[in-house]
Structures are given as structure tokens and as C-alpha cells.
């Protein structure tokens, strides 16, 4: 008697789907409900970002970097601007550094709130999504106050920022932080420690440390597997060494180390750490200073190339810029953290059920704009 083989079904979680975070196509081979193989197909959102950059001056590239990872646009701006300034060996005034850190940390909170809310939505909890978006709106209001835009800012320029913080920004920010910290407790009670949520996410999609490191995963996904690696500590840029914050790693609180619950929880902890950094930065920021002081008249970096990386909410964003002395870069390459996170999906999802794949995909927090550029 041989083994009875069931038919393997090839399913398509198509480009249009409520819970693939963008236009992503997943080719899934299943046997009944159990998945045997997943192949992501990307490229639906490719907009030739890197080719565009070869035809524009350095400051014209900044609105385009916004649109790559559109949910954390400040972080993209920051990464690019740090790279160009390092190439030009330009030093920015201290107030500008503080403003950049404040904006980047606010953006981190906003992006994590969205990631967590949408993850809850994929799991089926509709209410935490709306609560988190309500709080994210307050952060976007603060951004609107400063640079006029809510999602795609074009705020951080080479050598400075586009506008100084408006009067009353610091008070509003402190008000927001005082309002927001108890809300984190509410989210924990409503979703994080909810038994049904724990059943859906704990012990699922376990990413072992060595697999994570070999794939190049970074950011909260890596930290949830227990690796203490944060670019704000390990490869410091800007003024992050002045602030006192912990690097949060997962600890297998409700199951194995590196499962989906850990990735969710690390993001929740990072929000708390960002609040800490924000309080310190807002208190220590110099009150006066000209933010336009170091803006160069013409951005002409010397001949050479540079690769520099920063820590975005999704991980380790790298920019490789090559210049030949003219105002237009020869080559700009963006290394996106979500791309590596998506590539590790194939490793994680074998052997789980269909609902678990959705759960794992949500916990990796990918943004197709960044993957496809």
C-alpha cells in the first residue's frame, strides 16, 4: 500500500487583497489548509526611483525618497540626507540635529502604530486599529503644523530642515506625550494580552537567530529574535548617543523566541522607548538657532561614493550614492529593509495554515513602496 497523496493546490493571494500590505502577489502551494511553499511576486509598484535620481539634482531627489516607504517618510528623508551630508562632509547646527531626531522618533511612533493597528485588523480585531489611527492622527497634526503635509513631507533638506519648528510645537508635543502614554496601556489590555490574539500569534512563524542574520533581516524583526542590534546604538549617526534609551529585544514572552507575538511586542516596546527619547530631546533642544544656516548654495558633493545607513521603523535603510562632482548624482541606490523581511517569508511560512500566513506577513511589517521603489 503506498501513501495516498492529496492534490496540491496552487493558490494565488492576488495583488488586490485586503491584507497584503500593498500590491503583492503570493503564489501559495497548499495541501488542504497546510502551506508547503510560498513565492512572493513583486514589482507591481516599481516606479524607477533609482533611475529618476540620475536625472535630478540632490535636493530634487528628496520628494522622491518620501514616496518609497510612504508610511515613514521622515525616516527616508533622514537616511538620504545623512548620506549626502557625509559625502559632502557637511556639519549641521545642533538645533537641526535635535529637530531631525524629534521628527524621526515621532515618525517611528506613527509608523509602528499603523503597523500594529493593521496587524490587529488582519487578525480580526477591528477596534484597536481605529484607536491606534486616532492617536496617529495627532502625530500627523503635529507634522502638518511644521511642514504642511501629513504623509509625504519633503522636510529634511541637505544641510538642514525646510522650516523651523513653529511656536508652540514643544508644548503640543509634551501634551501629546502625556496623553499618549496611558493609551499604550489600553492597547496592551485590549489586544496584546488578549488570549485569542496570543493564540493566533504566539509560536507561529518562529524566526531563528541564525536564519535572520543570514538573510540580512534588520530592525524590529531581528530584535524580536533576540539579537541586540540597533543602528542607533551600534552605528550611531546624528546625535543619538546623547539620549538614554534601551534597545528592546524579544524574549519569548508568550511562546517561543522570535514568533509573531514577539515581533508585535518589540514594536510596542519601541514605541515606549521613542517616547522616552522624545521627552529627552524636547527638553534638551536649544531654543534658538538658525536652521537654514548650513544649507549649501549649490549641492555639489566631491567626487566619490558613500554607503550610509540609518534605522527606520522597518529596519536598516541604506543609501549608496555615487557622485562625480556635478549637481546631479550618478547613482543612488536604496537598500530597503522590507525587501529582506519579505524574502524571509518563504522560510517562515512552510507548514503553517492559511490564516497563519496572513498573521506572519502582517508581523513582518512590509511596505511595498519600499520593496519595489
Amino acid at each position, binding site marked *: 500500500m503506498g501513501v495516498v497523496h492529496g492534490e496540491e493546490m496552487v493558490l494565488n493571494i492576488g495583488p488586490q*487583497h485586503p491584507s497584503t500590505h500593498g500590491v503583492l502577489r503570493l503564489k501559495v502551494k497548499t495541501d488542504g489548509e497546510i502551506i508547503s511553499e510560498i513565492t512572493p511576486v513583486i514589482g507591481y509598484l516599481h516606479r524607477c526611483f533609482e533611475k529618476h535620481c540620475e536625472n535630478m539634482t540632490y535636493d530634487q531627489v528628496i520628494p522622491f525618497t518620501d514616496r518609497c516607504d510612504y508610511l515613514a517618510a521622515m525616516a527616508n528623508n533622514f537616511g538620504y540626507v545623512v548620506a549626502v551630508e557625509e559625502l559632502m562632509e557637511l556639519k549641521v547646527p545642533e538645533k537641526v540635529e535635535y529637530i531631525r531626531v524629534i521628527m524621526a522618533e515621532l515618525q517611528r511612533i506613527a509608523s509602528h502604530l499603523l503597523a500594529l493597528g493593521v496587524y490587529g485588523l488582519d487578525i480580526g480585531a*477591528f477596534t484597536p486599529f481605529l*484607536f491606534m489611527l486616532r492617536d496617529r492622527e495627532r502625530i500627523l497634526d503635529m507634522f502638518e503644523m511644521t511642514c504642511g503635509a501629513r504623509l509625504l513631507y519633503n522636510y529634511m533638506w541637505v544641510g538642514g530642515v525646510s522650516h523651523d519648528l513653529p511656536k508652540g510645537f514643544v508644548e503640543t508635543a509634551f501634551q501629546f506625550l502625556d496623553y499618549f502614554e496611558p493609551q499604550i496601556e489600553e492597547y496592551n489590555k485590549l489586544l496584546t494580552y488578549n488570549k485569542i490574539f496570543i493564540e*493566533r500569534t504566539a509560536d507561529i512563524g518562529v524566526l531563528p537567530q541564525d536564519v535572520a542574520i543570514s538573510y540580512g533581516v534588520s530592525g524590529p524583526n531581528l530584535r524580536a529574535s533576540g539579537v541586540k542590534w540597533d543602528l542607533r546604538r551600534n552605528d550611531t549617526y546624528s546625535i543619538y548617543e546623547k539620549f538614554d534609551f534601551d534597545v528592546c529585544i524579544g524574549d519569548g514572552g508568550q511562546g517561543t523566541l522570535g514568533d509573531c507575538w514577539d515581533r508585535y511586542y518589540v514594536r510596542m516596546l519601541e514605541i515606549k522607548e521613542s517616547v522616552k527619547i522624545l521627552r529627552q530631546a524636547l527638553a534638551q533642544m536649544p531654543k534658538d538657532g538658525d536652521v537654514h544656516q548650513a544649507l549649501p548654495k549649490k549641492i555639489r558633493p566631491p567626487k566619490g561614493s558613500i554607503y550610509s545607513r540609518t534605522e527606520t521603523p522597518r529596519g536598516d535603510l541604506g543609501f549608496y550614492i555615487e557622485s562625480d562632482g556635478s549637481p546631479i548624482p550618478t547613482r543612488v541606490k536604496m537598500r530597503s529593509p522590507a525587501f529582506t523581511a519579505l524574502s524571509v517569508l518563504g522560510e517562515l511560512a512552510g507548514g503553517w495554515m492559511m*490564516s497563519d500566513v496572513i498573521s506572519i506577513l502582517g508581523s513582518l511589517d512590509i511596505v511595498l513602496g519600499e520593496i519595489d521603489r
Partner: protein
Amino acid sequence: MSVDTLFDFLGSIIPAMEGSGLLLVIAILIPCLLLFLVVAVNAIVMVYAERKVAAFMQDRVGPMGQGVGLHAGKWGLLQTVADALKLLTKEDIIPKNADKLLFILAPFMIFIGAFVTIVAVPFGENVIVADFNIGIFYILAMGSLGVIGIILAGWSSNNKWSLYGGMRSAAQIISYEIPAGLSIIVIIMLTGTLSMQGIIQYQAGGMFNWIIFANPFSFIAFFIYFISVVAETNRTPFDIPEAESELVGGFHTEYSGMRWSFFFLSEYANMLVVCAVAAAGFLGGWHSPIPGYFDSNGWGVFWMMSKIVFLIFVMMWFRWTFPRLRVDQLMNICWKVFLPISLINIFGVGIWTLVFG
């Protein structure tokens, strides 16, 4: 009882046709049409209530309309009417390779499953279309017809996702009928009768005579029954078959327009039926909680409806609070948690009645 009284009444006002078969048919049709009206109005009100309850729990206001003209009335009362009109005017798409007959038949099967059970539900002291002496047994049996409709919908859409949804749903509904039925047995053991009116009459005399308070085991039985019927009507946290983020729409993905609204009409009708059974069986039916207080004949409908509305509200409350369970966890809970507890309940109620009389 209503059908008989209506039959005699009609016979008395139209002496020419008294006692004829045609009059009997008319006497049956009129309450059924009234019931259909009740179901339709119930659906309209519940869709609106669901959206408002969802909105209030999420710190927003839901459908509103503050002006006249194109807006949906103040407080958005006309929202469901607007939705119904929109659905009526939608294009009726049947997928090319779908099994056409089954595709068209499926929504009707589900609706029949829900509607056929409503005839045995008591809404008031004399307000019941058919007072069977096997009332509750009939409701449980006929409630299972809905599964056929779901499987047909999933199969005939010629879509792998719908098939998944249909299969999951069928497994879920069939499994959860068992704890529900076993909890009903607790009621039957205490009251000794299967007839709905008989069960309600057993609970006369105020709140502490209700079956839910008779016995700690029947208290637990109420919760087991309630959660089982939340699973049977495919509501969150058990709404895997229509899980929007996973299967786009589950078994009703390929349906559009009025056919799709039939699925939801029958889901709400199902909710009405199971909440009515819970109210009648455990919460005292059309009796008022305090004897003698608003207890006269007309008030029965009011008490019954308020208990049903409360239970439906609790179902909506569950939907907007909890995440979804995965299919195997769902089955796990049914077979490994609810079934043993229901069996222990039956045992416990028996012992309790024996010991304490």
C-alpha cells in the same frame, strides 16, 4: 395558536368560505407575511444598529446626516434604506464557470433555513405562528438547513477561496450545534417539555424563577449556549468563513447586489432566532422580571423583544472587541472545551434536581 384563531376569525367574517381549504391557506399566509415583514424590518434596524454600535465603540459616530436632500437623514437613520436601494441597482454578475443553478439557489437555501425556524418562535403570550409541541426540537433541526446553503454557495462560485470558506463554515456550524443542543437539553430536563410556550410558562413568577438562575449548571449552560450560537451564526470571533482579510469574502465573495444582501439578511434572521431561543429558554421569555409589574397581556411582546435586543447587542459587542479565531482553534474549543463542559452540565443538573428537588 395564532393560525387557528385567525382561521376561525376569517371564517366568521366571510361565512361563505368558512371551513374551506382556501381559507386555511390564507390564514397561514398572513402570519407568514407578517413574519417576513418582521425579519425585513429586523434586518434594516440591525444593520443600522451594528454600524452605530461599532462606531461608538471605536470613538467615531458612524453614519450621520445632518441635512436634508442627499444625506441619510439626521443620525443617519435612512442609511440602510440607501444601502438597500444601492444594492438593488447593482449589476448582477454570475461568474462564467459557476454552476448557475446552484449559484442562484444558495442564498435562498440559507434564507429558508433561517425563516423556517422563525415560525416556532414565541414573541408574546399568544403571539406565535405555530405552537408545536416539539417546538424547540423543531427549531434546532431546521436551523441546520442553513449549512446546505453555505456549502452550495462556496462550491458553485467556482473559486478556490469560496470553497475554503464554505468548507470551513460547514465544519464550524455542524460542530457547534452539539454544545448548543446539549445546553438545550438542560432546559428540557428542568422543564420536562419541548414546547416553547411550555418552557416559558415554567419560568413564570419573576426573575429568580428563570432557568438561568435555577442552578449553577444551567447558568454555565446559558453561556455555553450563547457562545455556541455566536459560532453558528458566523459572527466574530468565529467569522472565519467570511474573514475579510484572509479570504476576501469567503463563501460570498462572488455574490453581488441583492444576492449578497440575502446572505446578510439571513445572517441577521439567524441571529434573531437564536437570541429568541436563548431568551425564551433561559431568560424567561415574555415574562417580566418582576411579577405583576407591567405583566399584562400586551407587555409580553415588549419584554421578549427587549431581551432579544439585549442579546443581539451583546453579539455585536463581541464582534467589535475580539480578534478572530483560527479554524483549528475553533474546532479545538468546540470539541475539547465546550463539549465536556456541556456533558458535565447535563450530569450536574440531573444530580442537582435529584438532591435539591
